[in-house]
């Protein structure tokens, strides 16, 4: 009780330094927790997102580029797959389902992807869940109609019945407007997958869009594949990647994404290192803040000692005060964390369509605050030692 009173009053007496120090701890803690959670969530989410497919078949090139283009709608297409190749893989006994996609157009920066209606009727993008419409109906494969992902519909303000002109290329340029118009017939329910940020139109419509090369009118950009068994994947991998030299078979999708994260793990480590260093500097800030106020505190310490307080009691009060600053900082750190991860999640959602869930419990939410409080308490040890050594008689009223 007395200890709490001493700590509370001391924090109040040094309100400005308490506030500034706690704020720096809050930023450090918020940054550390954000980096950690975003790193783990991204890794967990992106290695699990496969849009319901096991593999992607595309033009010869990088597997990662193929997956990023066909599943995440991020990269440019490495090239085209001939219609005959699509027909071949579609009929291959090891393949359960093959969905072709064609890319190359956009609407104000959002991708227009040509596909077949089976994507919406036959594919479970995650086990037990198929794409559903919140408004309208699926497109007619023979008509100039479009189904919009919910995210892109919200962003572009498009509703069922609206009409738009596609633009050529993956990057929006006003001068590249196609002559055709497409009517929005449906809007997908949010799936928290990259499909949410795509404008889906019939495959044939994209293949034959005015200005596209008529020689490639039957080609597709990639084929999304569901396999009958994992063994089939390795067999096709051998066939296309080792024995063939025209196409690339990206399988398994999760492993390719995990490889990407492995390659960029140094970036996470740099971010984490920065967060650790900021944490360390903040703890040093606690040390400096308390240490610098020691000359003002020594009189209070001497008075409390004259009232019978033990050295170790006041020593403990200093350490606990440092820990309390750390605790205060870490409470605010959760607010900083909320802001940082909300912004990061919104950016990730806008760029990839993938929704990170930063509110799922992560162990960093326990060990980071605990670690920071302990670090701050350690930072309080040096001023506490100074308090311990305070000479009572010297710091009371001057000797008569």
């Amino acid at each position: 009780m007395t200890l709490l009173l001493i700590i509370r009053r001391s924090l109040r007496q040094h309100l400005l330094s308490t506030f500034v120090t706690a704020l720096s701890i809050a930023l450090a803690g918020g940054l550390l927790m954000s980096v950690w959670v975003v790193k783990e969530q991204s890794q967990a989410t992106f290695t699990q997102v496969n849009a319901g497919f096991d593999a992607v078949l595309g033009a010869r090139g990088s597997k990662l580029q193929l997956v990023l283009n066909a599943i995440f709608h991020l990269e440019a297409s490495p090239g085209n797959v001939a219609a005959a190749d699509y027909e071949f893989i579609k009929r291959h006994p090891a393949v359960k389902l093959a969905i072709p996609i064609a890319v190359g157009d956009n609407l104000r920066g959002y991708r227009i992807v040509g596909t077949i209606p089976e994507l919406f009727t036959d594919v479970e993008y995650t086990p037990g869940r198929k794409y559903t419409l919140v408004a309208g109906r699926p497109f007619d494969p023979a008509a100039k109609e479009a189904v919009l992902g919910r995210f892109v519909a919200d962003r572009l303000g498009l509703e069922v019945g609206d009409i738009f002109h596609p633009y050529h290329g993956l990057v929006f340029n006003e001068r590249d407007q196609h002559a055709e118009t497409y009517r929005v017939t449906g809007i997908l329910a949010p799936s928290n997958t990259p499909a949410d940020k795509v404008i889906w139109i019939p495959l044939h419509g994209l293949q034959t869009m005015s200005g596209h090369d008529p020689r490639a009118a039957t080609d597709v950009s990639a084929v999304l594949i569901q396999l009958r068994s994992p063994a089939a994947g390795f067999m096709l991998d051998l066939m296309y990647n080792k024995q063939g030299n025209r196409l690339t078979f990206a399988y398994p999708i999760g492993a390719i994404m995990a490889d990407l994260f492995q390659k960029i793990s140094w970036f996470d480590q740099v971010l984490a290192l920065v967060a650790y260093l900021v944490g360390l500097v903040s703890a040093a800030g606690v040390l400096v803040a308390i240490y610098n106020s020691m000359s003002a505190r020594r009189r209070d310490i001497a008075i409390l000692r004259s009232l019978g307080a033990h050295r170790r009691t006041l020593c403990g009060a200093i350490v606990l005060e440092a820990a309390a600053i750390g605790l205060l900082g870490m409470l605010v750190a959760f607010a900083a964390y909320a802001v940082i991860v909300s912004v990061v999640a919104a950016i990730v959602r806008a760029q990839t369509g993938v929704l990170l869930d930063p509110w799922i419990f992560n162990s960093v939410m326990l060990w980071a605050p605990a670690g920071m409080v302990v670090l701050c308490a350690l930072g309080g040890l040096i001023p506490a030692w100074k308090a311990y050594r305070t000479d009572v008689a010297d710091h009371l009223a001057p000797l008569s």
Partner: protein
Amino acid sequence: MQVCPRFNAGIFPHALRSAMPLLSISSLQRSFVSPDGERRTIVDVPAFSLEAGRQLALRGESGSGKTTFLHLVAGILAPDTGSILVDGRDMAVLSEPARDRLRAETIGYIFQTFNLLQGYSCLENVLLGMAFGRGTDRSRATALLERVGLGHRLHHRPRQLSTGQQQRVAVARALANHPKLVLADEPTGNLDHKNARESLALIRDTCRENGAALLLVSHDPEVLAAFEEVQDFATLNRALQGVAS
């Protein structure tokens, strides 16, 4: 003066304690190293005693070692040699935590500059006066502040009070832990005549009401005149008489 035999940890049995003076000092010496490197004896008191409930004023000039003497009695400073029996316990041989405990339970201290904690309210200052002894008692702290006329200033900070009022808070704090001995070091040194008179009366009355002995040091003739018993510190402290310690 006869020196009582020492017992373990400086604690004397209760039966023996009741027959002893509240404060009994023998062969007390304390020296300091001066800036020129020479060790100088500041306090050299062969014998001194104060009975329970007694009020005594020590007359002494500035620099005579009065404050050092009170610090030694309070256990704030440890002596070089000698014994300081306070309520049957020898401050000189107790460990520092035990001295702190004895001070917290037995002694109240009124300083010339009050030494109030500026970040705390009047009530909290008084509560801290009892916190390290037998524990806090809010109603007693409130009653003491009411007794010294500050019942309406419980939650004021010291800097929001006049000098006289601050002195009264210091008096209330010194009595908060039910002390058997109150030490007062030039308690009116910072007050004007009127406030000094009132404050002195308050200290003496409240000590009497609480059954506490009072040992006051001052150089102010007006303060000393208010006491029935006044002793010259120079006659007590051989260091002032030029006697080799």
